[in-house]
Each structure stands twice: as structure tokens, then as C-alpha cells.
């Protein structure tokens, strides 16, 4: 039984510089980096030492709290540097890549015949477990838990995000293998949301339930789909995976290799020719950013989409989970009477002398200016317009800010992830950091209750 999902509340943000549907191969990156910060709440315990040679798929470190969760090298090469920050926290592992990857062989596994434990062990040992996230708390899943359902969003509605139909086309075999394997790990089923229109590679997969999703962003966020299919209750655990990571899991099952290859959309108004690139997790973004060219030197490079991504140095590396890299103009300039004059070049959900409502399909060139200062919560009702979950957004944010655990739980904290609040953060008149407030709230709950 599949349930189609249609949402009304939300907002499609059209930005200039959408990636054209052409695929290039990015030049091979010289170095690759893994940032433990990408793995929220994970404290790494190193397995290999600085200077060691590693194969693609060799374990680099494991989680201090869950020794079974291992993190592997995306390429073969030499671990040249372990960068440490304050309190000797590991901030970055740098691998100097070989010219050609050699892989550690984990052996082929037929997901249809294998049992749950074998599958789980393989995913854990071969470094695919970090792709499995759980709700509550939006962290890497606890391997000892059994999820009531597994959710995968097969479409992306975020601004400038990679089009999954394009990026995953032709990968049906890998996706099927991954989905079949995952279906053994849950007592419920694997739910996959696909775009109502379009030619999703997920459409004809077995061992899962396909849901047709329509509506504005955040329809493509897995959190929205969970809320409409089977919301998380207290005590429940659900797992979520990003669609592009299924390809890596599928390839591991089919070939026994951890192949960190990923198709990444390079997009944004600063990019000269936005398009798709084949690269690998942790690669230097410069390899493809400069291949495509930047039209503005004063740009911000973001690993991930513009609502949820992380700012990185132009010489930095692709994040572990990112399948989009954006470059947009920095907005560190003053605007004369910017608060009172009519606005035609920015997006707004109101009509307070802002005119983006006249051209809902126009692509805008938004920069990183905050368009105003941080304030206390004043305006009400505008979050609800872009927030499709059955949760009171302002009330739950306030509960997080005052650290009221009972209220956070009652208002639905188990159901949410920071990304669910990216749109409310975008429209926030008071410029409050919603995603950070929710992340801090989740961390607090994890510490106190989790």
C-alpha cells in the first residue's frame, strides 16, 4: 500500500545558476579530506597512523561510543596529515591520493539471500554505516536499534540541489541491491518518495513502497515525507538515507568495493557554467569549480545546498554527504535604505513592498546578506506558511531555546531534523538561527534522554 503525498505549505526558491543536465568527469583530485565534523556527535578513534598507506575502503577510524561504526578511506593513498583543533579534536584527515584507486575487497553479497546480520555487518565493516541516519536526533543510526521504517527521499526540491532523477539515472541495479538489503533491516518497510512527474530510477524498484510526492519545497525533504507517511512517535526509531548514498551501498553489495564515486551538481549564480560532475567523496572542490569557472571572485563556496550546506574554503573538500556544491555571491555590502525601498531582486513571502510574488517562477540571484539584523521573535504566522509538518514551529523553537525538555518532547522534537527548519529560517523576519536552535535542542535531548 503506498500513500501519495501532496503538500501545500512550503516555498520553492528559484535561484539563478541551476546545474545544466550535462555530466563531466572532474579531474582527479590530488588530496582527499574527511572531516569528522560531518558526522554529528561522533568522536573519532584513529585506527591508522599518519603516514600510513590505505586502500579505498580501509578503515581510518571508528566511533568512540560505538566501536562497530567504522569510517573508511574514500580513495587509496597515503594518510598525510591528521589535523587537530582545540582540545586535540580531530578536525580533518588528509589523504594524498594514488593515481589509480586500489580497493579493499569486502566480497560480493546477494541481498536477496543474505540475512539481516550479514548485511548489517558488511555495512558496518565496509564503512557504509555512516550513510544510515536515524530519527530521533538526526545522527548516524545506532546499529543495535531496529527501525520501524526506513525512509529515502528520491527527489530534491531544495534550491539548486542536484536533480536525483538525472544524477542517479542508470544506477537502478545498485539502488535495487541497496534497497533490498535495507528492507531486511527493518520490521516495517522501505519507503521511497519520488517526484510525481519525471522519470525516477526508483519507480520500478522491488522490496519497497513508492510514494508519489508533489508540492513545493520541502516536499523533497525526507522529514516531510516521514511526517506524511508514518510520523515518528516517542520510542520509535526510523532510519533515513540519502538517495545518492544508496549507489555506494549498492556497489559494495554487487562488487565488494567501497567506491566513493558520486555525481555532484555544481550550481549557483557565481558559477560560469553550472553542470554535473563525477567526483568522489572528500575531493577538492577546486578540481571542478575551476574547471567550470567562477564569474565572481568574491563568492562563497558551499558544500551542500544553499539552505543546509556548509561554507567551505575555495581550496576545501567536498563534504561526506554532499551531492551539491554551490557558489553564490557574498553579500557583505551595505544597502542604502534597504529596509524601506521597494524590493524587486530578492525573494520574500510577504508583499511588504517586496515584489517577488509577481514573478513566482523567476530565478533570483540572492547573495549571502542577511537583509536585516537579528531580533527577538516578533512576527507570527509566517513560519506556518512554509512549514508542512503538524508541529508548531515557533513554539518548538522557543522550547529549545529555554531548554524545556518536556515541552520539546511534547511538541514533536523526535520527529524533526534541523533541515526541516531551513525554510522557516529563510523566511524568518527576526533572522533567528532556526537550524542551530533545533540542532542544539536535539543534542540536549540526546544527552539527557537519548
Amino acid at each position, binding site marked *: 500500500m503506498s500513500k501519495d503525498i501532496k503538500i501545500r505549505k512550503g516555498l520553492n526558491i528559484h535561484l539563478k545558476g541551476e546545474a545544466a543536465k550535462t555530466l563531466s568527469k572532474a579531474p582527479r583530485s590530488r588530496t582527499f579530506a574527511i572531516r569528522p565534523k560531518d558526522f554529528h556527535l561522533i568522536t573519532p578513534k584513529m585506527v591508522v597512523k599518519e603516514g600510513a598507506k590505505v586502500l579505498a575502503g580501509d578503515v581510518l577510524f571508528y566511533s568512540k561510543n560505538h566501536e562497530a561504526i567504522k569510517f573508511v578511506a574514500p580513495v587509496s593513498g597515503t594518510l598525510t596529515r591528521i589535523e587537530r583543533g582545540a582540545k586535540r579534536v580531530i578536525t580533518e584527515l588528509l589523504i594524498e591520493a594514488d593515481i589509480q584507486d586500489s580497493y579493499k575487497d569486502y566480497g560480493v553479497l546477494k541481498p536477496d539471500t543474505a540475512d539481516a546480520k550479514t548485511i548489517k555487518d558488511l555495512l558496518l565493516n565496509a564503512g557504509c554505516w555512516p550513510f544510515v541516519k536515524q530519527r530521533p536526533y538526526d545522527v548516524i543510526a545506532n546499529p543495535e536499534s531496529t527501525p520501524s521504517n526506513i525512509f529515502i527521499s528520491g527527489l530534491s526540491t531544495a534550491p539548486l540541489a542536484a536533480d536525483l532523477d538525472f544524477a542517479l539515472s542508470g544506477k537502478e541495479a545498485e539502488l535495487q541491491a541497496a534497497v533490498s538489503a535495507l528492507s531486511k533491516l527493518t520490521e516495517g518497510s522501505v519507503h521511497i518518495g519520488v517526484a510525481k512527474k519525471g522519470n525516477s530510477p526508483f519507480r520500478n524498484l522491488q522490496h519497497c513502497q513508492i510514494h508519489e510526492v508533489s508540492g513545493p519545497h520541502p516536499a523533497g525533504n525526507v522529514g516531510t515525507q516521514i511526517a506524511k507517511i508514518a510520523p515518528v512517535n516517542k520510542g520509535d526509531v526510523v532510519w533515513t538515507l540519502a538517495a545518492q548514498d544508496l549507489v555506494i551501498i549498492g556497489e559494495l553489495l554487487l562488487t565488494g568495493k567501497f567506491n566513493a564515486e558520486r555525481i555532484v551538481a555544481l550550481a549557483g549564480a557565481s558559477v560560469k557554467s553550472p553542470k554535473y560532475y563525477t567526483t568522489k567523496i572528500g575531493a577538492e572542490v577546486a578540481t571542478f569549480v575551476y574547471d567550470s569557472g567562477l564569474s565572481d571572485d568574491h563568492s562563497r563556496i558551499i558544500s551542500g545546498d544553499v539552505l543546509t550546506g556548509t561554507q567551505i574554503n575555495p581550496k576545501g573538500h567536498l563534504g561526506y554527504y554532499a551531492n551539491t556544491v554551490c557558489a553564490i555571491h*557574498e553579500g557583505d555590502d551595505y544597502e542604502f535604505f534597504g529596509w524601506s525601498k521597494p524590493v524587486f531582486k530578492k525573494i520574500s513571502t510577504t508583499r*511588504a513592498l517586496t515584489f517577488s510574488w509577481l514573478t513566482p517562477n523567476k530565478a533570483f540571484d540572492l547573495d549571502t546578506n542577511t537583509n536585516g539584523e537579528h531580533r527577538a521573535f516578533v*512576527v*507570527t504566522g509566517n513560519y506556518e506558511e512554509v512549514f508542512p509538518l503538524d508541529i508548531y514551529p515557533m513554539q518548538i523553537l522557543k522550547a529549545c531555546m529555554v531548554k524545556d525538555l518536556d515541552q520539546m518532547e511534547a511538541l514533536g522534537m523526535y520527529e524533526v531534523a534541523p533541515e526541516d527548519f531551513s525554510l522557516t529560517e529563510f523566511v524568518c523576519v527576526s533572522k533567528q538561527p532556526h537550524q542551530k536552535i533545533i540542532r542544539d535542542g536535539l543534542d540536549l535531548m540526546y544527552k539527557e534522554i537519548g
Partner: protein
Amino acid sequence: MGLKQKLHTLKEKYKGKKIAPAFNALHTFLFTPNDTTHGGTHIKAADDLKRTMNTVILALLPCLVFGIFNAGYQYHLATHEISAASSGFFSSEFWNWANFAVGAWKVIPLVLVSYGVGLAIEFVFAVIKKHEVEEGYLVTGMLVPLIVPVDIPLWMLAVAVAFGVIIGKEVFGGTGMNILNPALTIRAFLFFAYPTWMSGDKVWVHGAVERANELAAGMKVDAISGETILGSLAQNKALSYDTMDMFLGFIPGSVGETSTILILLGGLFLIFSKIGSWRIMVSAVLGALTMGFIFNNVVDAGWISEGSKFFGLMSLEFWKHLIIGGLAFGIVYMATDPVTASQTNKGKVIYGFLIGLISVLIRVFNPAYPEGVMLAILLMNVFAPTIDHYVVQGNINRRMKRLKVKNT
């Protein structure tokens, strides 16, 4: 070096100093700051609090302009220097320089005192508490001169503004934290501290008080009646104004509250721009109509005699409540204040409806002070968190129920 660069240099110089919030308030008035996003979303929508507040001020400006002309018009009408406006909204008896001169002379000082005192206090608090000057007072400062009688002494207004801003807002933590609408707190303070100035039949037309004093001193001049429609109805006098005049606003009253048509346009603008809550406005109008309708039926059923002191207002046709007194102004500009109103969409409907209902209720049953909308809004400000609590509790209960269904 351009102005932009000079101000930027000054901003860097003052950073971390005590004066910084005060400087930044002026700086950000001229230039939207160069702040960029960090963590979280990398792009932001165009609206900020200044723009939101500015939109409300834009919606209030027609009321202010009309109020200025009306102050002069009522004065000249009372002194029999002109005859009543005869050709609709654009009557030349109303829109002329003589009216404007008298009105501006009375009203502009009110605006200046309101903003001067209020913003000065905001700046002082911002410097002491080391936060930025927040924009809430921009709207409050415009509302205050529009909801007071035209002849109110300026010192009285200054005292009230100081009380309203400090006790009504700053003690709670400033913009966004207050429980009561600051503009109405100011008005309520005036009403209870100086009742003779805020009620009765002398204060609503410029010159009426002065003339009464001259009469008392034995001078031979005509008295000026400064009575509002509500005041005379509360005394069971017959309605002496034409319905159209009441709708257009050619009547005595607080400075900016009289023109229902301009308030209506302002309300539509606020709803269209999505700054004002249509839920509150519509439900408040329905609430007022409901209560008015009930009272009309009480009169029709003969439960109340013509001699009753409630008869005048109870027998007023129910929809006319909306075009007299400050009800429309209160509904559009005061009840919709997002900080003090209910914050949930369902809550807003209940909150608005009760404001309308209670406003008319107070009007009818409190002839000493027939304007009910101020007290109704303040009362509902206090109850708004309670309404929200139960609305949110509904959501929580739904979640609990889901859990129970799953576990059985």
C-alpha cells in the same frame, strides 16, 4: 570617501563601545547592514523587522493625514466658521489649508513628543542593556498620537509614553517580550491617571476645553461641544451624525480613529501585504457584529425599556458599531500586534472574535467610558497566552493519541 565608507569606518571604531547600539540604530536606518549569514541557511528572505514595521506605518499614514485635517475641521465646525462637509469624501470644506494649519499645529507636536520620548527611552535601554535598538517603537510611536484626544497636554503624553515604554515593554525585555500592547498601555495609563482629560464631552474637539474655561470665567462666548458619538449615545441622546459622515470620518474622536474608510483601506493593505493577520481582523469584526446583533434582538424582544441607560447604545443598529469610536482602528492596527496577540492561527481566530465581542459589550454596559475596544484588547492580550496554550495542547494531545493507538 563616500558616506557608506565613512559610516563603515565609524561602525568599526565604535564596535564594542557603549555608544555602539545608538550609533548602529542610526546607521542601520540609513543602510541595511553588511552582515552575512553564518551557519544555517546561506540565503535569507528580503523581509526584516524594519520593513515589517515600516509597512504598518505606511498603512497608518492616511489615518494621520486625515486626522490632521479632521482636527482642524472639527474646530472650525464647532466655532461655526465653516459649514459641514457636503460633497462626500473630497469635500472642499474638509480638505483645505485652514483645517490643515490648525490640525498640523495640534497633531504634529503629538507625533514629535511620542517619537521623541519613546525613542529616547529605547536608546537609553539599548545602551544600558547592550542590545540593538529594536524597531517595535516605530509603530507604537505612530499609533500613540492617533489614539489620544487632540487637546491632550504634551507633558501628559510624555509621562504616559515614558510609563508605557518602560513598564509596558522594557521591563519585560523589550520588543517581542511584552505582554500588553505598548500603545494601549500608554492610552490606558492616560485614561486612568487623567480621567477628566480622557473622557467626558470636552476633550475631543480642539478648543472645547479652553472655551469652557472662558465661559466659566464669565466671558460671553458660545460653548463648543466636544462630544463623541459614543458619549452622546451612552447618554441616550439621538444619533446626530449622518451614517456616511461616520463612515468617511467627519466626526469628533481621537486623532486618527475616525475615518473608517481609510482604516478599511489600511486593513486591506495590511492583509494584502501579509503583515497584518486577516484572521484577527475578520474574526474581530464578526465578534463585534455578533454582540451588536444580540443587543439589537434584546431591544426588539422588548426586554429593555427606552428609559434604560443602556438603551441608546443597545438599540444602535449592530453594524454601526464598526463605524463609530475606535473599534475599527483598534481591530486593524492594535489587535493585530503579533507580539501581544495569539501566536497560533487557530488562537488568532478566537482572540479576534472575543475582542470584537467584548468591545461592544463594554461599550454598552459601561456608559461612563463608552470606548470598549482599548480595554477589550488589553484584556485579550492577557488571555492570548492562555488561548495559545490550549491550541498548542490540542497538537500535543493529537501526538499522544497517535502514540496510544500505536501501543494498543
